[in-house]
């Protein structure tokens, strides 16, 4: 993977990982008995992948930029989901109304509240927990695990230990049906939100000055600092944004599962870690492809052999690591 000598210093897109998504979809095609089922599963898998991407993207970007792996990221997901219950349950009048706009407005309010809360907590978390241990991986893992323990206990103290039911808004329940193909409405929304987040992230990273700084920081943060930019400030912003995205993902995931528990963040974290490892630690593009792969795999295998669904993702991770030991898109300096 060393750069060719005549290569210009621009981002060259490595296309072979992109092909993995159609490959997996096509391999699954003959195994699944009917075409409509396959279409349904594929859309479901892409939707699940998008939701995982929303939650994982912030984490991988934070790692790419500052070499910090936040094991407490799952707590932000859980907090986002619980904030959503606090907003949506009192707004039951809006979510039960038979109007798409009322429903979406309620969801938007919940998402904004969740993102504001998790973003703010992310800022505080960076200041109090992570700042003193930059550059020390072992302590980072320990300290963020400590943060996770405390955050989970605080969630239990504030919202109580019981599972909270969070029904989807009325107009987002049910499915679109085309012939034999069944597509859940909520999954369509998840795909749209996921694409919007990916597009926004892509534009910010590639078309703005801040994005340029972030990308340069991922490549070589010392160099950026020596040019006079405060990379620390950029990083704090990225950390808060990543936490807010975790909150958004938490809301989406909670409405998808329709229940909220204090352990949900930790459950999703396992998928998120697999996604980040597959994509290459620190790579947003790799994270996107990894999320879709994991989402598709989980749905296909969940249909064919439900007992080994998570195992199939571990297998996928091992296979990809055997092919590319650093993940699909290795970040240069790691």
């Amino acid at each position, binding site marked *: 993977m060393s750069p060719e000598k005549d290569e210009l210093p621009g981002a060259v897109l490595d296309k072979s990982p992109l092909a993995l998504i159609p490959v997996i979809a096509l391999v699954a095609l003959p195994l699944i008995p009917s075409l409509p089922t396959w279409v349904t599963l594929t859309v479901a898998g892409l939707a699940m992948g998008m939701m995982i991407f929303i939650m994982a993207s912030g984490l991988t970007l934070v*790692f790419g930029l500052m070499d910090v*792996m936040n*094991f407490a990221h799952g707590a932000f997901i859980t907090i986002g989901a619980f904030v959503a219950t606090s907003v949506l349950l009192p707004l039951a009048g809006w979510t039960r109304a038979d109007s798409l706009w009322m429903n979406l407005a309620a969801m938007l309010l919940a998402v904004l509240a969740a993102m504001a809360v998790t973003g703010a907590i992310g800022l505080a978390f960076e200041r109090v*927990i992570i700042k*003193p*241990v930059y550059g020390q*991986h*072992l*302590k*980072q*893992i*320990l*300290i963020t*695990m*400590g*943060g996770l*323990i*405390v955050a989970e*206990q*605080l969630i*239990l*103290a*504030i919202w109580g*230990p019981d599972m909270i039911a969070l029904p989807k808004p009325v107009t987002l329940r049910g499915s679109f049906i085309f012939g034999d193909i069944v597509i859940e409405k909520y999954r369509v929304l998840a795909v749209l939100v996921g694409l919007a987040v990916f597009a926004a992230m892509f534009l910010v990273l590639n078309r703005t000055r801040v994005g340029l700084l972030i990308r340069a920081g991922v490549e070589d943060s010392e160099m950026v600092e020596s040019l006079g930019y405060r990379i620390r400030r950029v990083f704090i912003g990225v950390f808060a944004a990543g936490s807010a995205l975790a909150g958004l993902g938490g809301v989406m995931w909670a409405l998808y599962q329709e229940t909220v528990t204090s352990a949900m963040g*930790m459950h999703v*974290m*396992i998928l998120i*870690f*697999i996604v*980040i*490892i597959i994509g290459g*630690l620190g790579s947003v593009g790799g994270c996107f492809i990894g999320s879709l792969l994991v989402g598709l795999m989980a749905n296909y295998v969940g249909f064919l052999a439900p*007992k080994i669904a*998570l*195992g199939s993702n*571990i297998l996928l*991770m*091992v296979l990809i*690591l055997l092919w590319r*030991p650093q993940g699909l898109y290795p970040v240069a300096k*790691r």
Partner: protein
Amino acid sequence: MTRRLLSGDYPRSRMLATLLLLILAGLAFAPFAFPGTRSLDVAAKVCVFILLVASYDLLLGYTGIVSFAHTMFFGIGAYGIAIAATRLGPTWGSLVLGSLVALACSALLSLLIGMLSLRVKTIFFAMITLAVASFFAILASQLSGFTGGEDGLTYKLPQLLLPGTKLLEAPLFGVEINGRIVSYYIVFFTAAALFLALLRVVNSPFGRVLQAIRENDFRAEAIGYRSVIYRSVANCVAALAASAAGILYALWLRYAGPDTTLSFDIMIDILLMVVIGGMGTMYGAVVGATLFVIAQTYLQDLMKLASDAAAGIPLLPDLVHPDRWLLWLGILFILSVYRFPAGIVGKLRGRQ
């Protein structure tokens, strides 16, 4: 004698030595000093967790590897006994067979994980072990025909270890000598022997190399030590000791299930014990595990008093609610990592 037994690694602090002797005496005479089922359970759990935490400290404190798969090896040991005793009947032969198979599985699995992922960074290894361990926990609860699923397995043990078996006609020091006491002493002596063996490992030349790798793996490699091999072996030794702890725990509980051996909560408990007790000191495992298990059992009673006393003040009763005891240990954990990374043991040794 003492020197050989402790491998030359003395407590080096009068306070610490007193504390360790107190714990040792308390555990050695637990059935007589604290009669009662609950306190004997606590004592056995302390023995098992001292061994488990010490083996984790070999990884975290001495080698600088963060693994989240330690409960997996603990669980393999426990399930080895449980499955053998369920399938082959409660004989000594089946227990030995179950233990051996469990130890072999652990060794193989730990070497495999090590070879796949120990070449790379700490964080990478931590993430991979987390994924593999959670997969294993789910597997154990899904294969319900084999492992008993979420309910786990309850099984019989050989006659000698059952509570109904009386060994002496008359009670000794007012305590009836039955199969439970025999079980307790099997747990106690095995745990003590394996703890001393681990102490031997970390004070051997091999242990010194591990510490060199922890401090600077690049330099260790430059001197000529293949750090991958040393790390893999350390990982394997730790996994074997964790399985042994699992075997002892299964012998004591006569039950193996996901909640007692495989759950992520136990992994977090182990982390808390290692860090609060003191990373990189085997004695830290003793102090940490003892304090933690006692806190787990008795702190809640204390917090209930505090919670009742704070009734009426907003949020405070929720924070000191008996179920929130982990919150305070979590805060203590964070403070330990910042303020005294060598934990209680480091603090005690530093005072001299």
